[in-house]
C-alpha cells in the first residue's frame, strides 16, 4: 500500500518532465577574455504542443543574460535587444552566430573551455527550462 502511494506520488511529480517536452540541443558559449560579454548559442525545440514565448534568461554564473539578435543589413552589423521570441508548436528556435543569440554579462567566476554553465530560459506561461551550456574557446573549438 505504501509503495503504491509512493509510485503514484513519483508519477505525479515526474509528469511535467514528460508531458509536452521542450528540448535544448547544441548549447554552447563562446569564451572571450577578461570581463567581455559572451554569446550563447543553442537550438530550442518546442514539442509542447502549444506556442511558447521566450521572455528572458538568466544564469547563476552571470549577472545578466539578455536575448539579442544580430542583423546584418547593407553590410553593417547591428545588434538588437529582443524582449520576447515566439516559438510555434513543433518549431525550433535557433540561436546561431550572426542571428538570435543570448548575451551574457559579467561572469561571476573565471570560466574555462569545457566547463558547463546552467542557463535558465523563462517563458511567458511561467514555465522555465534549465539548459547546460558548454564553454568553448574563442574560435568555437
Amino acid at each position, binding site marked *: 500500500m505504501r509503495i503504491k502511494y509512493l509510485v503514484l506520488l513519483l508519477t505525479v511529480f515526474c509528469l511535467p518532465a514528460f508531458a509536452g517536452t521542450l528540448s535544448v540541443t547544441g548549447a554552447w558559449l563562446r*569564451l*572571450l*577574455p577578461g570581463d*567581455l560579454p559572451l*554569446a550563447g548559442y543553442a537550438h530550442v525545440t518546442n514539442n509542447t504542443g502549444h506556442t511558447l514565448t521566450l521572455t528572458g534568461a538568466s544564469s547563476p554564473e552571470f549577472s545578466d543574460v539578455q536575448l539579442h539578435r544580430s542583423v546584418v543589413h547593407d*553590410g*553593417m*552589423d547591428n545588434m538588437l535587444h529582443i524582449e520576447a521570441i515566439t516559438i510555434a508548436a513543433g518549431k525550433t528556435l535557433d540561436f546561431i552566430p550572426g542571428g538570435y543569440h543570448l548575451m*551574457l554579462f559579467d561572469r561571476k567566476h573565471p570560466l574555462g573551455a569545457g566547463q558547463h554553465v546552467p542557463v535558465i530560459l523563462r517563458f511567458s506561461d511561467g514555465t522555465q527550462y534549465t539548459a547546460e551550456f558548454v564553454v568553448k574557446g574563442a574560435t568555437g573549438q
Partner: protein
Amino acid sequence: MNRVLSFLSRNRGLVLVCAGLLVILTITGCGHSSISQPWNLLNITGHMPPLQFTLMRDDGQTVTQKDYLGKPVLLYFGYTNCPDVCPTTLADLATALRQLGPVADQVRVLFVSVDPARDTPAVLKSYTNAFGPWFVGMTGSQEQLVTLTKRYRVAYRLGKPDAKGEYAVYHSSAVFIFDRQGKARLLTSLSDKPDVIATDLKRLLAE
C-alpha cells in the same frame, strides 16, 4: 637539323602530348597569365585604395602600413564588446588560416577597434590572442579611425548606451584583403565560409 626532324617524326605522339601540356599550362595560368579564374570572394582590385593607416597596435606602438609590407593583410573593423558577429568573423578567419598550414604565418589579420574608449591596447591584446597568432589588435584616435574608415568607405556609429552604460557599435561586417604590396584585392562577407576564404588566401600567397 635533319636529326631533329627525324626525332620529331619518330616521336610524333610525344611531341603532341608536350604541345598539349604547354597549351593547358598557359590557359590555367600557371605563369600568371591574364586569363585567370575568378576569385571566390568579391574582387575589389582597382576599386579601393591601397593599405594606408596610422594606428596604435595592441603592444602600445604606433604603426603604419609600412610595418606590414610583404605580408598579405586582412583588415576588419569591430569592437571587443561585440560577442556575436565579431568573434564569429574572427573565428572563421582563424579556421581559414589554420587550413593554410605554415604559410599562414605570413598573413596578418588587423582587428581595428572603432571603440577606443573601451578597447585599450591591453584589452585588444588578450582578445586577439584568443583567436590565434596571426591576429593583431589596433585602435586609434577618433581622427585616425575616421581617416581609415572613410578611406575604405566603412561606416560605424556608437549606439545609445543602456541603463548600465553598455552600448552596441554599428560597424561593417566585411573583411578587406590586401596583397603583399598593400594593394586592395578582395572583400569577404559574413556568408563566406572558411574554406572559400582559405582557397583565395592560398592563391594570394602564391602570387
